[in-house]
């Protein structure tokens, strides 16, 4: 049951895009068309599953002081791997995704899940979390792309929708339209998940990623010594 929850959390309750508001840049850029959205979502999902699994596997080996560089190396390695495979076997899709494929390296969802989940859980749970978060990301992208492509371009996955041709809303395919749809979707998900979504941590000691270090060094957060650092 717990395993299923790990997977389903990423779909709606902790959706990385619409609830945690991570990975906004690729979401806005790649939600212009449904095909781009699915391709981007699946590429990010593959990287998420693999990086989460490897980081979880190495969590007891990686020292705290170099954990972020280690995560970045692992994530960048998987992204480059996906890039090579996609350029070799899916060149049209590779061209479509353009620079955003390489930018998966700095996608906050992946680094976020490595830091928040993979380095605290076992390999299977981490891979499952990656799968759930990846599907959540793909789902959010797909929903946004559907709205933007259908209403903005009167087409779905490149197929023209005849009766909508005279009622296009071109701004939806432009960046302002992306923000507009994004905002509406966040509002809708907030309404649907009211009371169930995770409460965002405040910017206090508990919300700080270095809190554990401070405690180890015997320093209290917020003291002059800590702040001077």
């Amino acid at each position, binding site marked *: 049951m717990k395993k299923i929850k790990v997977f389903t959390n990423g779909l709606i309750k902790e959706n990385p895009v619409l609830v945690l508001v991570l990975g906004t840049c690729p979401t806005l850029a790649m939600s212009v068309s449904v095909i781009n959205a699915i391709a981007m979502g699946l590429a990010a999902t593959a990287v998420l599953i693999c990086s989460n699994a490897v980081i979880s596997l190495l969590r007891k080996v990686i020292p705290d*002081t170099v954990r972020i560089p*280690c995560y970045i*190396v692992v994530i960048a390695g998987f992204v480059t*791997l996906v890039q*090579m495979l996609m350029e*070799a076997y899916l060149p049209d899709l590779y061209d479509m995704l353009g620079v955003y494929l390489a930018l998966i390296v700095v996608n906050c969802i992946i680094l976020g899940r490595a830091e928040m989940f993979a380095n605290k859980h076992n390999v299977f749970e981490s891979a499952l979390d990656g799968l759930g978060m990846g599907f959540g990301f793909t789902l959010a992208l797909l929903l946004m792309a559907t709205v933007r492509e259908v209403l903005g371009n009167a087409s779905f996955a490149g197929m023209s929708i005849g009766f909508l041709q005279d009622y296009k809303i071109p701004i939806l395919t432009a960046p302002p339209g992306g923000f507009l749809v994004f905002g509406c979707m966040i509002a809708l998900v907030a309404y649907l998940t009211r009371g169930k979504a995770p409460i965002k941590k405040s910017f206090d000691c508990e919300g700080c990623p270095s809190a554990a270090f401070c405690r180890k060094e015997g320093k209290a957060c917020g003291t002059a010594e800590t702040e001077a650092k």
Partner: protein
Amino acid sequence: MKKMNGNVKSVIVLTAICLIVTALLAVTNHFTAPVIKDARDKKIERSLKTVIPEMYSIREAVIPEGAASTVKSIYIVNDELYAVVLATTSAYSSGDMGITVGISADGRITGVTLTSYFESKDFGKDTYPNNYIGKDVNSYADVDTFSGVTYSSMAFKKAIGDALQAVELLKGGAEG
């Protein structure tokens, strides 16, 4: 001493992870590099057929001295036409813009196609490249840049000029 051991361990772990990832990528590259090269060659071949549809013979010419660095290869098609493959970037470009230009024996553009572009998705897929058809080294600059993708269309225009100039140099060299 304990802190130093910790630092040494950090360096060793990070280095080991970097080496393993590099090895994994090297193995992947070994298998995908030939496939990627084939895919790129096919893309260039398709672009050559787009700019010069009736192609009977093709041979690669040596890029003349003085040609711009954007000119990556020049092909002589049917012994009288030229196809120039270019790779250029704009001020904000995140990747190379690939362009193939077909040029007739009298130095006029017969076709232009954009083979790769990593910025705004619509540029080059519409009729904009067709505006250059029929232009020569003296008239290509008359084509306006494209609103909304000004830097990309400026780089595009400059690359077209580079292609025309390279063919002029090639013809000049052949005549000389």
